[in-house]
């Protein structure tokens, strides 16, 4: 009908929720396109959302060189958000990311797919928790 594209209500609510959280949150659509991350995630990634908006999650994740705590490289689709998108199942991992500001941060990442009422997967969300020395 020629109307503007409309985000699914689940994504609208997730974005609104994330925008008010001090917890780092990262949102992708069902195709794995980066559609939002909040200010707390910007701080962890060392990059503004506008610089990552619209990228594929596997391309974007690669930029941050995810590794295990032991230093082994993690393939982008094997990260929690990659698994939530590609396998449509929840995932959790301890990993390190090198931010665009060149700071390496240990984080805990938990991701899960978002299912709308009609049962379709409309995207996935990841929560990042920065580990400190005492953790």
């Amino acid at each position, binding site marked *: *009908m020629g*109307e*503007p*594209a*409309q*985000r*699914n*209500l*689940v994504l*609208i*609510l997730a*974005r*609104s*929720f994330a*925008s*008010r959280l001090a917890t780092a949150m990262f949102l992708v659509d069902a195709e794995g396109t980066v559609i939002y991350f909040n200010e707390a995630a910007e701080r962890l990634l060392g990059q503004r959302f506008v610089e990552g908006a619209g990228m594929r999650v596997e391309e974007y994740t690669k930029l941050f060189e995810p590794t295990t705590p032991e230093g082994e490289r993690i393939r982008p689709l094997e990260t929690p958000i990659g698994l939530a998108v590609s396998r449509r199942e929840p995932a959790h991992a301890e990993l390190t990311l090198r931010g665009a500001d060149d700071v390496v941060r240990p984080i805990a990442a938990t991701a899960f797919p978002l*299912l*709308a*009422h*009609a*049962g*379709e997967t409309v995207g996935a969300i990841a929560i990042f928790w920065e580990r400190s020395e005492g953790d």
Partner: protein
Amino acid sequence: MRIRVWGCRGSIAAPGADTVRYGGNTSCVEVRLDDGTVLILDAGTGARALGLALLEDPPPRIDLLLTHLHVDHVEGLGAFEPIWRSETVLHIWGPASPIAALDDRLATYFSPPLFPLTLAEVPARCEYHDAPDGEWRIGDTTLVSNPILHPGSTVGYRIEADGAVLAYLTDHEPGLGTDLVSTPPEWISGFALAHRADLLLHDCQYTDEEYETRFGFGHSSVSHAATFAERAEVDRLLTFHHDPMHTDPELESIRDGVLERWRVEPERCGIATEGVETGVTR
């Protein structure tokens, strides 16, 4: 396309001297298309009088589009006379749920002890459908339904027929956690349903002051309704889902408040009024 409002009150019926001008029945709108198609938007208490009117010239098929199953939107179904006639063909559409089918959820209200009979005892031939998330058709009519922001599973409807567009978002709080002025349209609940509609029926339950204590109740303030109409570039707006505590003069004050914020010709913003019929044209 023509519509007739049979009920536009929100939450609970509010008959009485204070509400006689705009009406006290809860949500129910009849939509008549040029080809004779009859659509009904919600089955609040206004459905009682509508049902009686339909018996004068019964249509071969009726499509009832429920936005959600809160009681003010379904409580007129039991008094909707066509369902008690075996010759009636009634298609009931409503929001999908991951938990139960539409008829099972509707039966929560339509069964003892809340109602003396069960849905299974209704003589009319009823068919129940989940309203699709997106575009669909009834005959030659194009409809769009999308989930919209309101507690529980709720949809809004867009009806495109006879060269015009009607949008119906009666219980809707698009401003919850969202700055409607600056947020990109794709991130505004219900935006695509309302975009450039010739007529938008939209929730305008609260004054801005009332909204401060009703945050998250699922309804819009004056500012929300005005900004939503402006952003969606609708031609006409009828304020809808009138608060049961609001008198006729208060509804007029609310309409004036919308016009202070949405700076358009006054005839482009009205108050949904029970018993009033209006054409929807481009």
